[in-house]
């Protein structure tokens, strides 16, 4: 069986990150750069950020994956906006 194209692995990883309950994040985006799958976007917790690596290892084993996912800052607002 021929190796799975990295384009399909990219799509499978995006699907898994959206549907796997360890992350469940549709807002994560996977790019292909120089043969590496690069995951970007935000998650709420460190556990979910770590789970990105775990899921990538399961879905795209044998391909290098760079996890550039950030945690959502949850500081209180430092200002307000006047609207209306």
């Amino acid at each position, binding site marked *: 069986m021929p190796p799975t194209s990295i384009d399909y692995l990219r799509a499978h990883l995006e699907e898994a990150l959206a549907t796997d309950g360890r992350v469940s994040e549709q807002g994560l985006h996977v790019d292909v750069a120089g043969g590496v799958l690069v995951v970007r976007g935000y998650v709420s917790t460190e556990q*979910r950020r770590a789970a990105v690596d775990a899921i990538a290892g399961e879905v795209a084993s044998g391909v290098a994956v760079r996890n550039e996912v950030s945690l959502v800052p949850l500081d209180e607002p430092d200002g307000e906006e006047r609207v209306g």
Partner: protein
Amino acid sequence: MIRVAAFGDCHVGADSRGLLRGAMARVHEHADVLLIAGDLTKCGTAAEAEVLAAELDALSVPAFAVLGNHDHHADEVEAVVSVMESAGVRVLEGDAVTVDVRSRRVGVAGVKGFGGGFPGASGSEFGEAEMKAFMRHSKVVADRMHDALTSLTCDARIALTHYSPVEDTLRGERLEIYPFLGSYLLAEAIDRAGADLAIHGHAHAGSPQGTTPGGVAVRNVAQPVIRHAYQVFVLDHSGDTTAVTERAGGVHADDLTAGHARRARGRFA
């Protein structure tokens, strides 16, 4: 002056305990009311809603929410709503509520909304049953928003959705997924009914600010966009004590304050 705190897409799960509690306990220092623009939970379970309810335990301002697509995932919508309402958060879906703050009455009309796309790149209710159902749902929820907004009599009206009513606040997302992020039908409903502010979430890579074709300010408050626990908006309605009222498809000028009339003229010209 009405101060509105808003956020969306907190995606609370079992691993979220303690992340929001501190900020939520101090919302009253910055705002009079809190709006949550959907995706309260990660996978839509009642257990996750319980975690969020605990995070909101010390919240001391009125709170209103709509659900998002994540909150539907586990098919536990009724239980999620029940948990949130027990925690004092009123969950809106085609409903409109008013709350009095600082001697002003603010009205909130809420629906989840749905996808469908925007002018020039919108789906149609045609073809396969699945496609027709998709677009029909988009129309149904937009109609709910219109009806909820027009039922309000208040000083300031806010349209609260999870999905976006405009493309402006999607900038940064891939163009190809816009039809999954919102629908122009929501904006059309908001413009027809009139509102002072439209708040939504869902588009994590989108932009914070936009405007409907009729001139209503739209704000994307998804936490990855605002990069804070919540955002505060100030609606200045000093001396404004009447509401825009749509009757038989038009706006009665007698009911309009200067600001409302200006916006309404733009919409109905």
